[in-house]
């Protein structure tokens, strides 16, 4: 079941970009740090959007949180890409960017990974989809869409620069032994 199409995503990203600038009274001190893989793509889109209406290049960093996860040893954890933040984050406002917010455990790991790079003045969180079911006291500052889900369901964000095709967000029913995924009945 498609819950957001390319147009919805574009409008949500534009709104988040405006909210980030509004909340931080401009974005001069802001660094966007995307979590691999789709969070990084979204962070790049946000910085492009801000550049258009604010005439400001907000730096974008990439964060791999694998070595900070709390489920190492419970499942295979493989890093995705290099952590690269092009500016010193100390004293700046870091906006963490991810595609889907779920248990909050990835964000917890991201905050640990981030604080080893410096001491940000503040850390804010932007997500395209908040699907609920938090297991930690974490809440997003900027949300594209609140999407109530069941725990077994799967939220798939597709971005054209990562996945090809058109942007979309889909909600899929629980998969059973890796078989073909059924769609949630409308």
């Amino acid at each position, binding site marked *: 079941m498609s819950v957001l199409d390319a147009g919805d995503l574009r409008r949500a990203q534009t709104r988040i970009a405006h909210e980030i600038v509004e909340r931080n009274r401009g974005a001069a001190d802001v660094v966007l740090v995307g979590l691999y893989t789709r969070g990084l793509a979204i962070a790049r889109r946000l910085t492009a959007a801000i550049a258009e209406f604010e005439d400001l290049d907000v730096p974008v960093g990439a964060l*791999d949180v*694998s*070595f*900070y*996860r709390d489920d*190492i*040893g*419970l*499942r*295979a*954890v*493989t*890093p995705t890409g*290099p*952590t690269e933040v092009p500016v010193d984050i100390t004293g700046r406002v870091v906006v963490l960017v991810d595609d889907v917010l779920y248990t909050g455990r990835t964000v917890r790991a991201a905050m*640990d990974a981030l604080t*080893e*790079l410096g001491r940000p003045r503040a850390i804010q969180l932007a997500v395209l989809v908040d699907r609920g079911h938090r297991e930690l006291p974490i809440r997003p500052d900027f949300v594209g869409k609140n999407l109530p889900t069941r725990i077994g369901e799967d939220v798939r964000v597709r971005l054209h620069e990562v996945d090809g095709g058109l942007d979309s967000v889909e909600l899929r029913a629980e998969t059973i032994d890796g078989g073909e995924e059924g769609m949630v009945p409308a």
Partner: protein
Amino acid sequence: MKHLLSIDDLDVESLTDLLDLSEHFVAVNQRDIPKVPALRGKVVASLFYEDSTRTRLSFETAAKRLSCDVMTFSVSQSSVKKGESLLDTVQTIEAMGIDAIVIRHPAAGAPHRVAEWTDASVINAGDGRHAHPTQALLDALTLRRHRELNGLRVAIVGDVRHSRVARSNVKALDLLGADVTLVAPPTLLPESLEGWPVQVSHDFDDVISEVDVVMLLRMQFERQGEALFPTVREYTARYGLTEARAERLKPDALIMHPGPMNRGVEVAASVADGPASLVTEQVANGVAVRMAVLFSLLGSGATIA
């Protein structure tokens, strides 16, 4: 993967995965705070029955950078001096609760025995003449950061007979597609080279201008019970990477040595410290590779399933 006892435990895919993972730890090691909490709470025991500085320090540094606790077992200050057997030692440290044992032992096969006795992951840090897999991994990582390994011509020069580094490197380089030539006098080669995917030369001057990489081995005087070459000076004249010989290398040839170096024997000091030398990079990459091995063995989830 539960243990790393030999390069034989790896195939091209798992070897490449380990090298890819190592790259992430190279990046971690370049940070201001070169440490991650990945293996917090895991205990690594290092058990060195042979002298070592760089390998032991490298493993211990790797473990600490992954937030492991490290139990260092120094044979000279232990109950081994009172006649404690390897089995008893392993049972003792296992009773204290450990997740991995890093072992170096003069007897080939000792790490394999230890792996049979313990539930912990065992990492071979060098056993006799047999294997030194993490050295081969760090050499492969170091080379891969400079050159495409497939088709690369590598000369491994010196005391191959006593060298676990050579044995492990031949296997790893062969898996990755490099062409290996062993260069040594017949007395410093193993009695049989059957099954070794290598070419052999007894004349360093024959191959020196054709190879992309020269990997020098340490002359292992401590393992040589008999005279295997007339004099050190004659060995150096024929098989040492002297300044004169280094002149004949390809202009972009690379030089490696697993350390510790006998300067002036297998390699001239000026060559070892020259721009073609990767020796210090090898040491730095050693920490990253050992972090990757520890993370793979202790952080994969396989031990819990």
